[in-house]
């Protein structure tokens, strides 16, 4: 059991982080509003989790202006893709071994 859990990534334990990674792994990029509307979370909550994932090196952000309004776009890094894939595989292993 211990071995199975070793690939469960602590960084993805929160539902919001799981959601962010799920959106970014299938889309080349997503902006703050899209993430917020898809995951149905508050701005503050989303911002906290985005910052944590960015600090872990799993996603990158780019600030730009759209119609003179600030708009931040997020992308997954190759490290993020790999870690998230491992996390999904670990979850699947856990289900199989139950």
């Amino acid at each position: 059991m211990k071995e199975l859990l070793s690939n469960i990534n602590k960084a993805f334990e929160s539902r919001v982080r799981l959601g962010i990674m799920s959106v970014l792994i299938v889309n080349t990029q997503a902006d703050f509003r899209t993430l917020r509307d898809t995951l149905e979370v508050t701005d503050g909550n989303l911002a906290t989790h985005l910052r944590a994932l960015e600090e872990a090196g799993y996603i990158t952000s780019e600030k730009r202006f759209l119609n003179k309004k600030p708009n931040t776009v997020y992308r997954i890094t190759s490290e993020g893709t790999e870690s998230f894939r491992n996390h999904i595989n670990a979850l699947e292993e856990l289900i199989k071994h139950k």
Partner: protein
Amino acid sequence: MKENDQPLDDIKTIKKIMEQSARFISLSGLSGISAGIIAIAGAVTARIIINGPVIHKWYYSPALDFTEDNRRTIILLLINAAAVLALAVSSAVWFSWRKAGRSGNRIWTPVTGRLLLNLSVPLLAGALFILLTPGRLDGGMIAAATIIFYGLGLVNAAKFTLGEIFWLGIMEIITGLACLVMPGWAFIFWVFGFGILHIAYGVFMYLKYKG
């Protein structure tokens, strides 16, 4: 929630969010059925506008002379075409909106925009191809071009929605090319491509996805 269910719930959440954020999954089978019925009604109406209510050799494509005295006919055909387009699109939107509401999905997402963009580029190219061809295309060629470019639009848009749309697009392209080979049968090919294929696809999708 039992702690044991956590991994399974996580996987379910991941799958749902991936699907929702990358594909437009609210396309309803009923949209296809209604679009098909509207297309057949429109094709028959166009036939009556051109040839009058009594049609001999009803399967055979009508020839239309684009001359001055045909202005009334052409205006009627344009109104017919616009009505078919408006009815087909609005019924597709309505059924999808209903399906989205029932399954708790939103109908307008960034994916919806990408889907429509990818569908409309080949469609616009097709419309311009027909309008800009020097001289004039005969009815059979116009019918073939509308079916082929529509098929290309579907193939192009398929990656943003249910995968079956790709195969519907391929079948439309084949139908359009067959129509090009036998332009005399354009009426039949058009009814098959926009009517029968849509209805068959709609029934299949309705049964497969229960909605």
